[in-house]
């Protein structure tokens, strides 16, 4: 797995310290909590409709995920399109 003699392992110490700091900080202060209305509200939805069309392909990328993925970041707003006729 290692690229060059495992020097990247040295980053584990600082990374572990930072991870533990933030995990415990949030456990005490709960700054990341809010009303999970996406899953705690009664929603009745009609079946989802839509279309999928192939528009291109990518060859030889090193990224394992799509750039700017936001499929699960429900609260991240993207460009809002307004209908002209109100």
């Amino acid at each position, binding site marked *: 797995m290692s690229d060059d003699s495992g020097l990247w392992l*040295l980053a584990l*110490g600082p990374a572990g310290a*930072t991870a*533990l700091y933030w995990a415990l900080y949030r456990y*005490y202060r709960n700054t*990341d*909590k*809010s009303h999970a209305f*996406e899953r705690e509200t009664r929603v009745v939805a009609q079946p989802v409709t839509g279309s999928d069309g192939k528009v291109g392909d990518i060859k030889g990328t090193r990224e394992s995920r*799509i750039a700017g993925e936001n499929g699960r970041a429900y609260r991240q707003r993207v460009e809002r399109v307004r209908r002209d006729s109100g």
Partner: protein
Amino acid sequence: MSNPGPPSPPPVPPVSGPGSPQEVPPPPGSFPIDPESLPAPIRDELLAPDPVAIDTAAKELRDGLNHCPKCGATDIRHKPGSDLLVCLYCRNEWDGARVEEAFGLGEGHDQLRGTVVASGARDIAEDAASLMSFKCTGCGAEVTVNTENAMTARCHWCRHVFGINEQVANGAVPDAVLPFHIRKDDAVARIRQFVGKRRLFALKEFKEQFTPENVVGVYLPYMIVDANASADVAGKGEIKTREYQRGSGNNKTTYYDADVYRVERHVDFTVDDLPLESSSERGNLDTRANTNNIINTILPFDTRNAVKWNASYLAGYSSEKRNRDVAHLHPRLEDQLLSIARAQVEDSVRRYDRGVRWEQEQLDVHGSRWVSMYLPVWLYSYHQPGSNGGMLHYIAVNGRTGETMGSVPVQQWKLLLAALTTGTFIEGIVLTILANSS
């Protein structure tokens, strides 16, 4: 040991992005690090049980008046742990009408058109005063009620109790109220349990001054919204077609080929009883300045069981007045509806195994129905001194379900020390491994 070197983490979390209340919250009880890998004292705190939230769905309720229907006395109180009102004079007990049936709020979501506003949710008149005075019919004395924080007052001469039952234009009288079900001693026990799980790194002064018996029952103002909406989202999705490695030996690199699709989705949906804070102060969830996100987290309430407004439910509790109108809250509603729509379409894009990037979204709110409501919250607060007036830390217990959430101030040096020690320990292991391998 050498090379401890972890950088000091910044003390304040970001306001947006990961770790803020603007982000989708993690599932309850989850912790990013496996607790089994942590030292015993920390692990014990993490694995201790959370206060249990009980489900108080569907209780049958009926109507109530401010005079005792049996003897006519006004000395009426809410009976703790129930939705009953009790007359302190003749001990008669009775209960209030559920607004869900009385106003037909539980049905017709898909027929909603336009903005329907219940009478208690109407716009606040600018000149409406929050102080209201009554002439006591018993003795003629003047009795004043400050609607900023109370809805009842007792005539100190003849002990008649006055409640504000007619709807006044200052926004203090809602359409409905959800009475407290969780008793005070129950709330105290939950707060004790919650803090008991968070003592190791808690601020010393907080632990010394911890007196959960000082918890206050507060009725907070909310708008409960039903909505009928359609949403369209469009973006790109990618499906992996090939995965291969180039290079040899230690210099292998993984490459991917993928097909790119344009993805469009449409969903029609209705939302039942979405609660929105109708006080500008409570609606501000900036974790740098306040801990209102704690109170936001204990939502939702079983608002289906709310009863028609009767000031007697508020006797002995304090209340906060609404200061936000429907128009102010509309952007927030649209934002939450879009988030719900995005959550709804997620299942339909699972085939894109490299993920989806939404680029455009559109929302049509066909109709919405707004009802103002007082919801019951047990609040414990601790003021941590500091710059800019310090920070007010809340621990809140949902007055219906018992869901408990809180912000416990941390002793920074202890937390940093624990993090540095852990970092040094890991670094030590790494150095040992490296030394042995070379």
